C-alpha cells in the first residue's frame, strides 16, 4: 500500500442555486468514507466541512467542482467555483458574518458559521479567491492530527 497514492479519487459538479440536490456530494462522501472503514468522528469532521463548502458554492457562487482524494492517512477536499469571490476573507471567517440574502436565510442558511465550521473541522484550510472570478477552498483532514504538517493558514 503506497501511502502517497490516493486510494479513491472523486470529482463532481455543483450548480449554484440548485437546492434540490444540494448536500448530495457530502452524503455520498459520507457513504464512501464509511465503506472505507474510517472512524465515525473523523468522517463527521470531513463531511461537515464538505457540506459547508458545498453549500457555500450552491448559495454564493454560480457553479463549481468538488474533488476529493482519499489517502490511507488523510483526506483532501477541494472545491473550486466560478462566482463573486470573497472580498475580505478574514471578515468572511468571522462567526456571524454573512451576505446571504433573505430568501436564503429563510431556509436556515446564512448564520455565518460555515467557514468557521470548516476551519474547526479541518486540519488545514487554504482559500484562494478573486473578486468577480471565483473561489478555491482546499481542506486537509488527517486521521491522526499529530501528523499535521503545517499549521492552519488562510
Amino acid at each position: 500500500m503506497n501511502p502517497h497514492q490516493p486510494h479513491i479519487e472523486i470529482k463532481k459538479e455543483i450548480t449554484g442555486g440548485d437546492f434540490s440536490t444540494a448536500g448530495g456530494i457530502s452524503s455520498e462522501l459520507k457513504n464512501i468514507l464509511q465503506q472505507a472503514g474510517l472512524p465515525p468522528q473523523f468522517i463527521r469532521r470531513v463531511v461537515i466541512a464538505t457540506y459547508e463548502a458545498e453549500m457555500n458554492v450552491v448559495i454564493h457562487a454560480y457553479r463549481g467542482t468538488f474533488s476529493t482524494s482519499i489517502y490511507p492517512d488523510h483526506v483532501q477536499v477541494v472545491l473550486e467555483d466560478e462566482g463573486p469571490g470573497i472580498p475580505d476573507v478574514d471578515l468572511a471567517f468571522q462567526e456571524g458574518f454573512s451576505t446571504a440574502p433573505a430568501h436564503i436565510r429563510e431556509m436556515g442558511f446564512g448564520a455565518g458559521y460555515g467557514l468557521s465550521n470548516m476551519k474547526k473541522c479541518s486540519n488545514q484550510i487554504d482559500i484562494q479567491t478573486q473578486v468577480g472570478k471565483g473561489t478555491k477552498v482546499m481542506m486537509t483532514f488527517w486521521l491522526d492530527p499529530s501528523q499535521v504538517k503545517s499549521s492552519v493558514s488562510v
Partner: protein
Amino acid sequence: MKVSDIVKPLEAEVLCEGDLNNSEITGGYCSDLLSDCIANASEGSVWVTIHSHPNIIAVAVLVGMPCIVISNFQEVDPQTIEKAKKEKVTLLRTSLTSYQAVEVLTKIGIHGTKKHA
C-alpha cells in the same frame, strides 16, 4: 428512549417513519440555523426546528440525528418527505411551538445535549 416513544407526547403526525421502532434518542437540540445545528448538535439527538425544506434531512444525516420534529404545524415540502424516506430519517410534525415541544421532550426525560468539539 426509542423514537416511537416521543410521537404521542408530542401529539405528532408521522410524516415519515424512518426507523421509528429501533432508533434510540440520546438527547435533543433546538435550532433554526442549519450551521449552528451542524456545529453543535450531537449524534442521536432529536432535532426540533421550524424548518421544513429538504435541506433539513441533509443536516440530520450529517449529524446522525434519527428524528426531526417540525414545530408549529409548518407546511412540509413533499420533497422533504421523499428525502426523509430515502435517508430513513423519522419526520414528525406537531402543532406545538418549538419551545412547547422542547418542554414536552424534557418532561419525558430527553435533555438538551451539545457536541464537544
